[in-house]
């Protein structure tokens, strides 16, 4: 029975992959792909810097403690609602940036002669991990409010620090895009 189930799962996986393949369109004539490219261009460094400036304070408890001292429930409610929106925005921007980096990397790496499968797998792991983090972060904000991810990000950072890092000498000057 187990063999039957495993074989059926293999067949199902193949059929689903083929359905996805049949629905995919070629990059050259695909409007979605060109939209992706425009998204990549719409995320300049300044946009990321803005998000970076926001994120320094976004999950901070200092503002929340200050608001609490005022003792005004309406103000607390407004603060939490706004923080929630900003936190979601930050995670959405980060998630879009991960997708853009991944798209750009795959578009270029498929042409590279000396592509390293090991390196590709490591990068795929990182992409998946960071995308998952963003999704979990969004879920945590929805469930636990905008201040909840502070603990989560601390945990994430500890795990992220344990991930393999690119060698210093491999950080060649950025190519002009």
């Amino acid at each position, binding site marked *: *029975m187990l*063999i*039957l189930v495993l*074989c*059926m799962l*293999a*067949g*199902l*996986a*193949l*059929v689903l*992959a*083929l359905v*996805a*393949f*049949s629905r*995919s369109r*070629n*990059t*050259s004539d695909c409007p979605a*792909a060109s939209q992706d490219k425009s998204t990549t261009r719409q995320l300049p460094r300044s946009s*990321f810097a803005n998000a*970076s400036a926001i*994120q320094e304070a*976004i*999950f*901070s408890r200092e503002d929340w403690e200050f608001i609490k001292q005022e003792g005004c429930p309406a103000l607390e409610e407004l603060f939490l609602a706004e923080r929630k929106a900003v936190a979601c925005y*930050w995670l959405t921007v*980060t998630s879009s940036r*991960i997708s853009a*980096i991944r798209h750009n*990397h*795959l*578009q*270029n*790496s*498929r*042409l*590279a*002669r*000396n*592509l*390293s*499968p090991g390196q590709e797998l490591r*990068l795929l792991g990182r*992409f998946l991990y*960071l995308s998952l*983090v963003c999704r979990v972060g969004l879920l945590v904000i929805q469930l636990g409010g905008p201040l909840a991810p502070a603990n989560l*990000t*601390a945990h*994430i*950072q500890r795990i*992220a620090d344990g991930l393999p*890092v*690119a060698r210093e000498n*491999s*950080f*060649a000057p*950025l*190519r002009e895009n």
Partner: protein
Amino acid sequence: MLQLSIWCGGAILEMVILLRGFQGKLLPRFPIFYLYVFSVLFDSILIYPVYKWGTHQQYAIVYWTCQFLAILIGSLVVFEIYRVALRYYPGTSRMARNALLFVFALAIAKIFVYRSNGTLSWLRNAPAELERNLRVVQAFGILVIVGVLLIYAIPCGRNLKGILLGYGLFVGSSVFQLSLLSHFGDSFRATWTFLQPFSYLCFLVIWLYALWSPAPEPVHQPEPPPGDYSRLAADTHQELAKLRVGFRKAER
């Protein structure tokens, strides 16, 4: 009568596919695929008289021999898809080659595990089970190619896409049918006798549609200078490192 109709329909479709391939000069582009279609047509012509006038044992021998030959040529079709789809993408080709080698290494390892039973005795006693296992290996091989094509967004022309879809769905349906046949045995055999040729007829229609006329080759990007990948990977690492810094800031 129904079986004869399916048999005739299949043979006619195979002949039309071969004829259109010859007319559209598709044979040199996909030689192994057309060899596969020709071999299946030849098998059908060989099998039907044995089915009609031969004994059950003779039919079983001819049928399973033809099936295993078709699997062998079908595996070469998988490699042809890989070769044609990824010829302009050396990096992706390397990824797919490594993954395919991994899949086939696993298959060989499995054969060694079952070596004590003897593959030939297995072929004699449970040919459906053996074919199912070979189809599962093929399914994983096709999964690897489809995965690489999807992840790296490799453009495919209509002809190649049709070959891949038709053969992939055929392998997928074979895995389903042979799994049920191996598990339920004779109670499923009557259904399978009609289901197998009928489903194959459907995949022939997919091939006929996709290969009716030669489709233009998709536009491929120019090749980057050699040695570019390490810099690209470093750029990507750097971009991801910035995101990690972002998480660190959020922590404060």
